[in-house]
């Protein structure tokens, strides 16, 4: 099936299947997933361990290839692209925030933030850069190496790095997973602000109902399929829904 993504979509997937291994040991991680990610929306993907939520994120972001089906980023179908072309797409349209090890240890905070721009050889938009670090409160920390920053600060640098090139979409994999609850809350509100104030699109994988409640929309994944969707969530509603899923 070919992509029919409308321009308003930042990313989409049609009938995505992902199998790991072969024969007896084969595991189906994605089982016919179709999903649209609208622009300027904060989407959370939730599900129990093994539900395929990380796989969905990786295949949407082009880090991993679908076994069958197609996916797009902006208006580009990435399923057919070569490794080099996908790298190009990632560079142009995507920002990442991971759970841990988000920063290059030998680069300062500033250098880590501008890394995607340095890689593509794009000039840094000074005003935008200053605005981001102002919001994230990183002004005093720019010349520090990652080892000299707290966990919360490191993740904020990672968010700044994801924002600086104004990507079409940011994928975040348990961004608050390693943080204490206060730093986590701070980080998630920053992400929320980025969506509301700058129209940034963010897709986040999490298993934490509180974290998910910062999103505009939650997709629930079970056994490789999207089983439910929730808009304008609160932590309690999410928790209830998760309990239904036996989590």
């Amino acid at each position, binding site marked *: 099936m070919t992509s029919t993504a409308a321009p308003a979509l930042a990313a989409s997937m049609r009938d995505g299947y992902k199998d790991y291994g072969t024969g007896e040991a084969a595991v189906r991680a994605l089982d016919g997933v179709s999903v649209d990610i609208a622009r300027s929306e904060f989407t959370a993907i939730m599900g129990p361990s093994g539900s395929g939520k990380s796989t969905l994120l990786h295949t949407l972001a082009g880090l991993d290839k679908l076994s069958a089906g197609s996916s797009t980023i902006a208006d580009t179908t990435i399923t057919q692209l070569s490794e080099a072309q996908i790298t*190009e797409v990632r560079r142009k349209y995507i920002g990442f925030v991971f759970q841990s*090890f988000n920063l290059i240890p030998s680069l300062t905070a500033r250098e880590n933030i501008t890394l995607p721009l340095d890689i593509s050889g794009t000039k840094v938009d000074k005003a935008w850069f200053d605005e981001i670090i102002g919001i994230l409160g990183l002004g005093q920390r720019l010349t520090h190496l990652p080892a000299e920053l707290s966990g919360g600060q490191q993740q904020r640098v990672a968010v700044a790095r994801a924002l600086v090139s104004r990507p079409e979409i940011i994928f975040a994999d348990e961004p608050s997973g390693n943080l204490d609850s206060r730093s986590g809350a701070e980080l998630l509100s920053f992400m929320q602000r980025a969506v509301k104030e700058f129209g940034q699109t963010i897709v986040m994988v999490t298993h934490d109902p509180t974290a998910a409640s910062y999103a505009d929309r939650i997709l629930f994944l079970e056994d490789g399929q999207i089983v439910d969707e929730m808009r304008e969530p609160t932590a309690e509603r999410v928790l209830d829904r998760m309990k239904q899923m036996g989590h």
Partner: protein
Amino acid sequence: MFRLALKSVRHNPKRLILTAIAVALGVSLVAATQTFTNALSSGFSDLFDDIYSGTDIVVESDPDAADEDDQGGDPFAAAEGVFTPADVEAIGAVEGVSIAAGGLQVNGSVVGPDTGDEPDDPLASAGGAPSQIFNWYGEPRVDQSTVVDGRGVQADGEIVLDLDSVENLGYAIGDEVRVSTDAGVDEFALVGTVRFGEDNSLQGATLAYISDADAHRLADDPNYASVSVIAEEGEDLDRLASSIGEVLPEGTRAITGEDKAAEQTEALDEVLQYVDIFAIAFAFISLFVGAYIIVNTFRIIVTQRTREFGLMRAIGVTGRQIRSMILLEALVVALIASTLGVVLGYLLALAFAWLVSLFAGDIFGTMTLPLEAVGWAYAMGGAVTLVSALLPAIHASRVAPMEALRESATGGKKPLKVRNIVGAALALIGAVLVTVGLYAGLDKPYIWVGAGAAMLVIGVTLLAAQLLSPLAGGMRRPLSAWFRVDGKLAANNIQREPRRSANTAAALMIGVMLLALVATFTESLKSVVTEEFASTKADLFATGAQGPVPDGAIDVIESVDGVAFTSSVGFGTATYDDMDYAVAVLDPATAAETYEYATDPAIGELSDGEVYINPTIEEVGVEVGDEVVLTGPEGEAPLEVTGLYLSENEGAFFVTFPTGEDLFGDVQVVQTLIVFDDSVVADDAENPGGAVTFSEQQEAIQEALSEDFPLVILAQPGQLEQLANQFIDLLLGIISALLGSALVIALLGVANTLLLSVTERTREIGLLRAVGMKRRSVWRMITIESMIMAVFGTILGMVLGVALGSALVLSLADFGFNGVTIPWVWLIVYTVLAAIAGVLAAIWPAYRASRLDILQAIAADG
């Protein structure tokens, strides 16, 4: 514990592969040389057995009793005859002797038919294999040759040649064969061909036999040099040898053929032993370089496994057990690597022997792997690996159980302070030792210089870490400008682990240092050569292809039109104060006009009965104004010291020809310098009058000589200079080749370090790829890192090498070195090669890095 170590090696063999290869390469050098020399020894042992198998007893000058008689005098002559025909008869009369045959070798050369053609290149034709001309006896056991075609020599004026030479020289039975000696060219009728021993294995030499009387005439010697004895059937050879010994003249001996062969083999083995020692020295250099790699590898592995060790400590494994486990791992690697090295070495020896036998014929015995080779290989491989792994092992044993619980495996940065202090101290002591060794005139200077150089190298290695940090920091800016973020990251990575990068670069430094040292030495040597030839006014040099320049040839040269005069230089060995010294014999008047001798006063002032001395003799305490008594083979001469020769590289004493004749009788001329008169013009000069040019003049002289003295070679100073420089380049080439394995090992080290650091940085590289870095950029980043390390190591090595080489050259000023020539061309070549090598060394690590699976790389627990 051993099982744990084995499992660990087996679990992750990749990280140890390059380490094992490095050890194996060093070890293979030892195994190869020993196998090779062993085969050479057994090959020649067979040959000597062949030669002396026919002869029951050999009677010859006793090498122990011989002194100036055959060792001194001139270096070219065959052994001088010591047995009169009466002596030979007396030996023949001893009871039990069946045949006693006097043997005599003629100093001369069989030359090809006179085709009337000019030789294309006189220098090239001079390098051919020598001729061996003997008297023919007619008994295969004595002659060691059997007639193949025709017949043996029966009358004067006849000759037989070995069957290969007949073909090579282009003669046929019945032809007149030209034999050139000191006295000129003689012609002999070829009556037959012979085969030497079983296979005529002469390694390219020409073997000829002439009649007894002709041999005595050409050798200008009525006596025999040796006597071959064939015993009667059933005679006890040892007893016979001792009864022959009773009738022999003073200073000679009788020895059985079997003993003689054994003696020759032993003498050869002694020479080959030096080859072995030489090779082992180079193997040590290789393994020394290898040691750097082993240290690095085990260090990195220990760091990577910090959490694993912490866990082991937490569940009750002692530090000592962890240490032995790592040492056992090293032992496993050493055993595998040494075995690999032995096999590789044996194959190398086989290949090399095959190559040599293509050119030199089958000179090898059976190729067996000698037991010593195996012993050396395992001992060296094992010792180097274990010693190198010791420090990392101790480090690992100190890992605290708490480390298992830490989030990140990479520990905090230790300051370089201790390393710097130790490094500076070692480098300083090393430099002092080298200086002392070179200039203090101690007994065994090379021990001081060697130990000093080793300490200097280790010291500089330690200091290199400090040096590398600001250097990489400084390179960040230009690298970022050229290669953007790839360059910046590469510089950062170098800086991040300065110890590791410095050790890796230092491994390359050692090999390059030795190369630069040798290059500095050889280039300075070339300058000496150039200067020597620049200070000569001679237009041509005449030398003998296989001996001295005959007196008759000098007369011929002087008779050619256009030759103004000649100046000959002779050499001999004379005894002064119970020591043998080289004595240069020259003609002061002409010498002063052909060459700028560095003497005080001028060489022209030297008169008969006087002598100039060089610094060696000055050091013995002789001064100008003293009287010295020199003893030569032909007599004594009391001489007054009237001047100094300021260089050590020629004779110790300088005398005139009349004085030389008192000492040596007929002085052997090693070189005659020819000066043309003004009628001869340079080849490239304007020549409107059609005057004779240099080349034409050279041809005219060669033509005049070709009749009677075809073995005299003429060369223009430029040609000789070129020839000398070729020899120097050859020396550089051989040493470079031997250092090759050290350099290859060093490059493996660069690759190894990068590979391990790629593994360590898996997640970082994954992150870079995730945020959009292309594979090509990852590749470039690793390559830049590799190039920085390679070029840094090379530059350090060159600085050290040129410094040590200069120190060496300056300390040899007495031998005519008058300044250091820095081999700029080589230095540039080395730097470029280092950069290329850096690119090559990065291939595998860069491939691995660029192919990393991003998902795995960023997985939460990498």
